[in-house]
């Protein structure tokens, strides 16, 4: 390195920007991303479909920071009064904004990807499903495009006012997905968290990727046009802006389906006459599901009331199957990233076995108080049975309901067999429970 080069303070990694202008937002983005994903590192059932969608979902606030940083850089370094930001200078129109945005996007996007790394590593070790490359590419392109939009705000405003304008604009754009579904095609993320057994609809990912690429081109051209002197209207530039406008309108005229079901192969086990099947990517969950569901079914004791199969919702072929509640003989169990089988399996099994509390006519109120109405007291029996059944997953005991505190499991099974019809129509009063008489 020559002595003259050594005197340049700016590092090639940041040049020509002061490092603090880039490191501060990058550090903030890293912290935000780690904070947003840290609690998920020990989640059960993580999978690549979920992670692929998280690349966009977790970017929602970091991209706002990146856009603000880009606006600040543009506001500070493209002001017309600066001796090195004169519009006639040969590199003012293209190379300068390119260099600024490359440095800002590289650091901010790099920090974001580093922040996502722990969750990616954990997901990779589980190996369930496969990454959705188009969704990831769309999210990362969107991150870059919205950061460039922040830079454009800075070039247009040429001052610090650009920062709140960019932050507000990009925050608004990333929030539109929660206003209505058509915005999903134009946003970093879907309005829900997809997981194994789903995938984005075929048109959605490529449309989003195309939109963000087009936005990048239009923003880049508009930025160059603003920095140019003398300025002239360009038909190509006008066409790019018009194309962005058309791609924004199109999904509102013809809404896309958001996700489609993509059931994989099933892994099954059988216990007590009930078949338990999960998506192959959830194979690790099967033992826990069987171990927690079987005692509940055993405690219920009426074999013909049990489901023929407990099936992972990730195996459903359509939403009707997965979300329409208990079928005649298949219990669809949602297994998703972050689920807790110790809480959800016993509750779901018990829910399946006990009658709908709506039949009690108590408006979902259950009470054993002295002034409680008869319907409310009968509802308490149903709730009590539900809690007692769920507690059997852990051997019963203290986790049960007060009404069933002294109940012997065989006694409860016998009572269920005997009063099954009345129980189903919510006609059993607390005083009738055999172990309380």
């Amino acid at each position, binding site marked *: 390195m*020559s002595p003259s080069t050594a*005197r340049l303070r700016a590092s090639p990694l940041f040049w020509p920007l002061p490092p603090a202008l880039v490191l501060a937002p990058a550090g903030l983005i890293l912290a935000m991303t780690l904070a947003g994903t840290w609690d998920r590192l020990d989640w059960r059932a993580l999978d690549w479909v979920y992670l692929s969608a998280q690349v966009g979902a977790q970017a929602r606030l970091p991209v706002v920071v990146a856009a603000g940083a880009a606006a600040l850089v543009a506001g500070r370094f493209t002001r017309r009064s600066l001796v*090195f930001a004169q519009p006639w200078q040969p*590199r003012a129109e293209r190379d300068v904004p390119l260099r600024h945005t490359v440095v800002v996007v590289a650091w901010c996007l790099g920090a974001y990807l580093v922040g996502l790394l722990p969750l990616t590593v954990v997901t990779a070790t589980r190996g369930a499903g496969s990454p959705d490359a188009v969704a990831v590419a769309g999210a990362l392109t969107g991150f870059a495009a919205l950061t460039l939009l922040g830079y454009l705000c800075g070039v247009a405003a040429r001052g610090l006012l650009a920062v709140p304008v960019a932050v507000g604009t990009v925050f608004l754009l990333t929030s539109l997905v929660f206003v209505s579904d058509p915005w999903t095609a134009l946003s970093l993320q879907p309005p829900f968290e997809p997981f194994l057994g789903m995938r984005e609809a075929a048109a959605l990912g490529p449309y989003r990727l195309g939109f963000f690429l087009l936005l990048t081109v239009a923003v880049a051209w508009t930025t160059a046009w603003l920095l140019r002197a003398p300025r002239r209207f360009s038909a190509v530039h006008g066409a790019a802006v018009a194309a962005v406008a058309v791609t924004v309108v199109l999904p509102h005229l013809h809404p896309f389906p958001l996700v489609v079901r993509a059931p994989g192969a099933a892994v099954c086990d059988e216990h007590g006459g009930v078949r338990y099947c999960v998506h192959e990517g959830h194979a690790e969950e099967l033992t826990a599901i069987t171990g927690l569901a079987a005692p509940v079914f055993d405690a219920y004791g009426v074999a013909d009331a049990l489901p023929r199969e407990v099936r992972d919702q990730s195996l459903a072929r359509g939403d009707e199957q997965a979300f329409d509640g208990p079928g005649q003989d298949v219990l669809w169990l949602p297994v998703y990233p972050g689920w807790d089988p110790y809480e959800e399996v016993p509750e779901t099994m018990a829910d399946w076995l006990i009658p709908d509390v709506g039949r009690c006519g108590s408006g979902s109120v259950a009470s054993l108080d002295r002034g409680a109405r008869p319907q409310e007291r009968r509802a308490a029996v149903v709730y009590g049975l539900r809690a007692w059944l769920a507690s059997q997953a852990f051997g019963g005991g203290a986790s049960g309901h007060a009404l069933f505190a002294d109940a012997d499991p065989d006694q409860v099974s016998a009572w269920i067999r005997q009063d099954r019809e009345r129980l189903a129509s919510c006609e059993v009063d607390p005083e009738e429970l055999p172990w309380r008489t």
Partner: protein
Amino acid sequence: MRITAEDLEFVRPGRRKVLDGLTWTVEPGVTGLLGPNGSGKTTFLSLVVTLLPVRKGRLLLGDHDLSTAVGRSGARRMLGFVPQRFTLAGELTVTDTVAYAAWVHGLARRECGRAAERALDLVALSDLADLRTRVLSGGQRQRVGIAAALAHDPRVLVLDEPTAGLDPGQRLRVREVVARLGQDRTVLVSTHLIEDVAHLCTTVGVLAGGRIEFHGTFPELEALVEDTSGESAYGSGFERAYDRLIERIGERA
């Protein structure tokens, strides 16, 4: 490198003709551009530095025709321009500022450090190279601006009021720098200060009514000023006489 204007016209949208058939050749060396307010000095400089498009007449920078996009693009690499008012990014050092300016003017990044050093040496600012620009005085900032315009070694340097707002000592140093630069390039200085012209310029052009109404050496301009009496506490007799001359040229135009 020569600046050649032939029958140059410029009309501001919805306004009067600012330049009206301006024909002038600026040769290498330091040339002063004088003229009353509103005479078209800033417009002419803006055309030379390609900020404004040439629509009527011809303007050449060497062989580059500034009425074409190709010509403007080629000319921009030969140009250095210090506007009358400019700002610096206070968080950058003097060296980083000048090196960045060199890169913005088209130099490769690896050459910028050396170019900055050379330019700072030319404007006698090497000892302040590592300071952040926010701590500089007005004269030092002006010299950083000149170094930024010089770093890519332009053949043509355009300075708009380079000594405006400086104290006498700073003005003297800037003049020394500009005079040195004029030895091997074309320097066009727009100014209101007759003293700048007297000490700096090998030739002078007086712009009035959109045309060059006088072109010659400073002694020739001086010769036109007949009556230099009337010295007062507020200015020299020559300054008064010069003002009258500019007015007279303007009226004639």
